[in-house]
């Protein structure tokens, strides 16, 4: 209640934006808002909703997002495995607007002027902000692997790492593959989006093959020296449940793709031929972050001050989600991005209200992987802000993984998905 009064007095001083007067004009892009959020994934949509919630709906928020609906990457491997549909992992953006008063603008942002504090839209307009939240996700660096750009553009070699049409296309390739065929997934060196994701996908494809095409094989071609997440659990599943189907090949860095012969080429090892190639190249912050110079760590990830996720490059620009330079042991996950969004939203509400920001925020992460259509393993962690070293640190003795794949966590995993989708968008 007190906070509301404080914000209302700010409004009385003329500090608030003019969005309220435009609320009846659904198609009008506002020229100004106190907070503009770019990108409606787990990080951005959560930040947009929680700026509204934590300010008692006193701070205007515009969310710029090109897609008509949110398609979740978590759980999308089950679409590839065949036990979920793309509709199951798709949620609309309309509740952000109808329930929480976030103005959702369906567009791309093509430029950011941190000096004038404006963003430019692909359609031509500009929006002025007091605080900008950038949640651009990741860009797949197709050019780091020879031949991959063209092979992906033709639809032959898919990534399906941004859930959507490619998720369905990959499922179709697997359905059309002959029994006795080979599916190969190539994993880039860490850090990449969703550390356990490729290994979960391998399990999903193996689960499908085991039922429908038992003579087929899954090759996991990993640029890393070992499985990057839940290693002992995944390896046990491959050895016990997918014996003769899954083969794990560490330290294999793909250098080139020959689409014509459906072959992967490496720096040292022999070529690998497969019927279905699923190649994940190295990743970096979404292109808008690279274009605007906000990806200031190796021109790849966005450096942020972890206490409020403000860019180390530009004042009043906050960056959340997979595109940031992570603190140690922090994964690039949807759950983590949602947590970033909340800490950022709270800091922005405090800063715009002239209140102190929380000096000791913390973040949580829980990440479930389905090893078939029912059994799940998880990894969980808690990251406390350390004000001396100005970073997040995991707490010794906290966090951990499942003891073994189990059905109870299969139920929790699906409920987690539904609850986090509602928490992010509903």
């Amino acid at each position, binding site marked *: 209640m007190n906070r509301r009064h404080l914000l209302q007095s700010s409004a009385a001083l003329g500090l608030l934006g003019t969005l309220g007067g435009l609320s009846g004009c659904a198609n009008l892009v506002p020229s100004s808002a106190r907070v503009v959020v770019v990108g409606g994934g787990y990080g951005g949509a959560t930040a947009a909703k929680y700026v509204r919630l*934590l300010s008692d709906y006193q701070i205007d928020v515009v969310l710029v997002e090109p897609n008509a609906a949110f398609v979740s990457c978590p759980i999308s491997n089950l679409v590839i495995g065949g036990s979920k549909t793309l509709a199951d992992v798709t949620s609309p953006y309309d509740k952000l607007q109808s329930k929480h008063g976030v103005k959702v603008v369906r567009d791309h942002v093509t430029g950011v002027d941190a000096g004038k504090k404006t963003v430019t839209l692909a359609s031509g307009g500009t929006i002025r902000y007091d605080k900008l939240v950038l949640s651009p996700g990741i860009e797949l660096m197709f050019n780091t692997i020879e031949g991959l750009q063209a092979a992906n553009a033709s639809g032959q070699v898919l990534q399906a790492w941004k859930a959507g049409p490619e998720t369905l296309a990959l499922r179709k390739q697997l359905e059309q593959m002959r029994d006795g065929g080979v599916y190969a997934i190539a994993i880039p060196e860490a850090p990449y989006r969703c550390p356990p994701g490729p290994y979960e996908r391998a399990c999903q494809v193996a689960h499908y093959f085991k039922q429908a095409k038992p003579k087929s094989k899954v090759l996991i071609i990993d640029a890393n020296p070992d499985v990057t997440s839940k290693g002992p659990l995944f390896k046990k599943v491959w050895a016990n449940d997918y014996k003769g189907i899954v083969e794990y090949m560490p330290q294999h860095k793909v250098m080139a793709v020959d689409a014509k012969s459906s072959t992967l080429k490496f720096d040292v090892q022999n070529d690998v031929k497969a019927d279905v190639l699923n190649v994940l190249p190295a990743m970096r912050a979404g292109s808008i972050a690279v274009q605007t110079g906000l990806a200031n760590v190796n021109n790849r990830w966005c450096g942020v001050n972890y206490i409020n996720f403000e860019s180390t490059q530009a004042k009043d620009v906050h960056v959340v989600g997979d595109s940031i330079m992570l603190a140690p042991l922090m994964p690039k996950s949807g759950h983590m991005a949602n947590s970033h969004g909340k800490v950022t939203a709270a800091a922005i509400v405090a800063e715009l209200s002239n209140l102190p920001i929380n000096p000791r925020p*913390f973040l949580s992460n829980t990440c479930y992987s389905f090893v078939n259509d029912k059994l799940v393993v998880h990894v969980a962690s808690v990251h406390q802000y350390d004000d001396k070293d100005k970073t997040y640190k995991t707490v010794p003795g906290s966090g951990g993984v499942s003891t073994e794949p189990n059905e109870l966590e299969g*139920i929790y995993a699906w409920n987690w998905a539904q609850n*986090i989708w509602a928490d992010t968008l509903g």
Partner: protein
Amino acid sequence: MTRFLQVATVMWSAFFASLVHAQTTAAALHQRATAAMCANCHGTDGRTVDGSAIPALVGMPKDYMLRQMQAFKDGSRPATVMHQIVKGLTDAQVQTIADYYAATKR
């Protein structure tokens, strides 16, 4: 002089009141944001989707929640994830979270 003192006193009181006001609002904001770290799994303001096996926290009595958190921590209540999460939280954070959900109406 007396008038000056009166004005000064009024101004000081107003300043002090605004200071207290800012502290309480900051505390409320930080509390809500801290409790929001549970919402990823337990729903916004502790309200889960219909049919969720993950329990709702909204309106949960404080004493009950504190007991459960302690039981997760010492292992007397088995869990899949919560025993690993609660070990990462400070006692003050657990108290703040328990206070928030107990005070939030269903």
